[in-house]
């Protein structure tokens, strides 16, 4: 930003000057929205109060951050860039890479049982439901969207529409025709993938930003229809009393033919939660498995070729129409599965659950994890969804900032900030994989930087 950014050795005076300038800008930047607070008083009038101390804190933090950045961080980064890179990665990396996935799967399989036996049915619910199931839903959605965004390179901002289609398909069909969860799960997936194809058709010719905006429009249209078509969807009020899934016909309730009674266990709502956990775990692993296998099939390779260069793809005789539509359909199908699971888990759905923010969250998970990386999605989902659940639990912050402090309202704020920072820091996401799947003799590492991705302006001229 300032003059210090270019030179390697920065004197303290220069850094201070830079920090002072940044502080000045920060003062002007935060003056209106932090310096003043508009509040509604008892008479329903807007009144204005000032928050000078808070403004001072913001300015001080910004200036101090700038000082540290210019004075310490930049020279350190410059020194680090000059250090020679070790040719061979250390040996432990190989062990971690080999054992990480089996260990992780073993962990998630044992996790609910471990929680159940250590915390019992009272305290365990929070850990399995809020952390386990919630994160797994987003992992699954992330993996589904990863097919569209990460593999095929089609930026879809309306992914939540397919999630909504799945959820409403399950809810309406189950309530109207009394069909069970296991019949409707594949049906919801099929219906969603039909919608994926339906919405995919018109946007085939569009690329990049335009595609993103049209999918956003489609997502919003579906949500607005769900809100306004009250006769079918009950509008804002949503659908209540959606049937819960059963375990081979045994409901998870306190009745005589319920799950607990049949197995001679004492009734606990936790059994259903553990069951749901394993259902979503199986669905998520299915998504991952299918994606990993598809990547090795011609269609998966066509997706990745499409992501890298559409014109080259067409020149090589790849049918881009089919390639794009299958990507949309596959992505939408998994969203449909996740949607019907969501409806069955909550037993209540309303259009509020399917806003643009939800699409952006799923996209953020895919992008932050590293587009195309399966592990990256898991890490990003744990950090972002687990992190926002943790924010809910941070009661000690209330002791610091006062009783009105609500950490959860910072969730989306941090989301947005994380998206910007990760893009600036590592545009390819946390785990950037561009490992070639096809090779002649040995696996060679290639740069994570894109081979050829022009900026859109160059295409305009």
């Amino acid at each position: 930003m300032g003059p210090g950014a270019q030179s390697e050795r920065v004197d303290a005076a220069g850094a201070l000057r830079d920090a002072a300038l940044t502080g000045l800008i920060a003062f002007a930047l935060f003056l209106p929205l932090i310096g003043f607070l508009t509040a509604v008083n008892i008479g329903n009038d807007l009144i204005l109060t000032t928050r000078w101390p808070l403004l001072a804190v913001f300015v001080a933090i910004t200036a101090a951050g700038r000082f540290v950045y210019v004075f310490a961080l930049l020279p350190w980064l410059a020194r680090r860039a000059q250090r020679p890179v070790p040719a061979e990665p250390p040996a432990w990396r190989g062990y971690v890479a080999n054992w990480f996935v089996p260990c992780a799967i073993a962990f998630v399989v044992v996790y609910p049982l471990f929680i159940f036996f250590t915390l019992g049915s009272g305290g365990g619910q929070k850990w399995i439901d809020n952390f386990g199931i919630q994160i797994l839903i987003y992992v699954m959605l992330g993996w589904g969207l990863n097919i569209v965004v990460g593999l095929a390179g089609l930026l879809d901002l309306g992914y939540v529409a397919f999630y909504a289609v799945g959820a409403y398909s399950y809810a309406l069909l189950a309530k109207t025709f009394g069909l069970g969860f296991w019949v409707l799960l594949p049906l919801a997936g099929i219906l969603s993938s039909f919608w994926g194809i339906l919405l995919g058709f018109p946007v085939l010719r569009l690329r990049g930003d335009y595609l993103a905006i049209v999918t956003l429009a489609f997502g919003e249209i579906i949500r607005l229809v769900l809100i306004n078509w009250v006769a079918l969807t009950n509008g804002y009020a949503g659908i209540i009393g959606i049937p819960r899934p059963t375990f081979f016909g045994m409901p998870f309730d306190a009745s005589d033919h319920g799950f607990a009674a049949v197995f001679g266990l004492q009734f606990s709502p936790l059994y259903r939660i553990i069951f749901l956990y394993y259902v979503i775990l199986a669905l998520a692993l299915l998504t991952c498995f299918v994606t990993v296998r598809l990547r090795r099939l011609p269609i998966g390779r066509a997706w990745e070729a499409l992501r890298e260069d559409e014109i080259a793809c067409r020149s090589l005789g790849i049918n881009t129409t089919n390639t794009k539509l299958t990507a949309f359909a596959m992505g939408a199908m998994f969203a449909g599965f996740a949607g019907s699971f969501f409806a069955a888990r909550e037993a209540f759905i309303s259009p509020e659950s399917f806003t643009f923010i939800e699409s952006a969250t799923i996209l953020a998970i895919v992008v932050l994890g590293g587009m195309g990386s399966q592990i990256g999605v898991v890490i990003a989902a744990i950090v972002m969804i687990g992190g926002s659940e943790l924010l809910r639990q941070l009661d000690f912050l209330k002791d610091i900032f006062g009783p009105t402090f609500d950490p959860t309202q910072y969730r989306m704020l941090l989301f947005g900030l994380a998206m910007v920072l990760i893009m600036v820091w590592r545009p390819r996401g946390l785990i950037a994989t561009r490992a070639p799947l096809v090779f002649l003799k040995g696996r060679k590492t290639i740069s994570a930087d894109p081979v050829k991705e022009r900026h859109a302006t160059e295409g305009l001229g």
Partner: protein
Amino acid sequence: MEYFVQQLINGITLGSIYGLIAIGYTMVFGIIGMVNFAHGDVFMVSAFIALIAFLILTTWLGITSIALALFIVLLVAMTFTSLINWVIERVAYRPLRGSFRLAPLISAIGMSIFLSNFVQVAQGPRNKSIPPMVQGEFVLFNQNNFAVTLSYKQLIIWSVTAVLLLAFWYLVTKTRLGRAQRACEQDQKMAALVGIDVDRTISMTFVIAAALAAVAGTMYLMYYGVVSFSDGFVPGVKAFTAAVLGGIGSLPGAVVGGLLIGLIETFWSAYFSIDYKDVAAFSVLAITLIFLPQGLFGRPDVEKV
């Protein structure tokens, strides 16, 4: 007839606001080829700045002249919003120039989420409403017991928009900065070779875009008298629709597109269904992009190897 004329007046008013925001989208897209997703939220932030400036002027400084207050509010909102957009470009978009195609868009989406939630946290989630700034109206004509009116608010919006568009047109076509902008739009490398400071030109583009969005924000606040942290998204998408409809990259197109979207939305609400008015705007976006991607005034996007 009288109902139609009234809706026409309302539609043009709404369209002026959309047009002002749409210019921001179209300019930024023209010069760096990115959809500035956060632009709608910049507009929302500007409405909040205008709200705070208005409250300071009327309740603390006791300015009673509405014309003076409105003028100062406009200047304050334009200044601060420009600064905010300048910083946003510096922090969130400039490091990504030359990165892969979708990176700036994703960064902009993050910025959009950040801005709306920042305002929510900083100013609270409730709607902020102010007493009407300007009251009164002209009765144009009276027919079948239906008075067609043009309120002072609408007249102010029309004239402010017209004056600013003229100033903006002068800036782009007659000044050094405008020439530099058009040069960067055509070829950034070549522009740099002939001595144009490309970075500075792009920064100024963001500043101008924000200033126009701030005008729209102030007008929005004056017209509706209420603003909330979530008010950026839908007007933002509609203004983007306007920019696409007019042909993205084309400045007159953005204004025409804005007016068209304003009219479509108003007439749709008036004659069909007010519940589905957003669906109408979003459908226009989808249909335009699918059947007329270059818009009304745009150049076709030629794909080159």
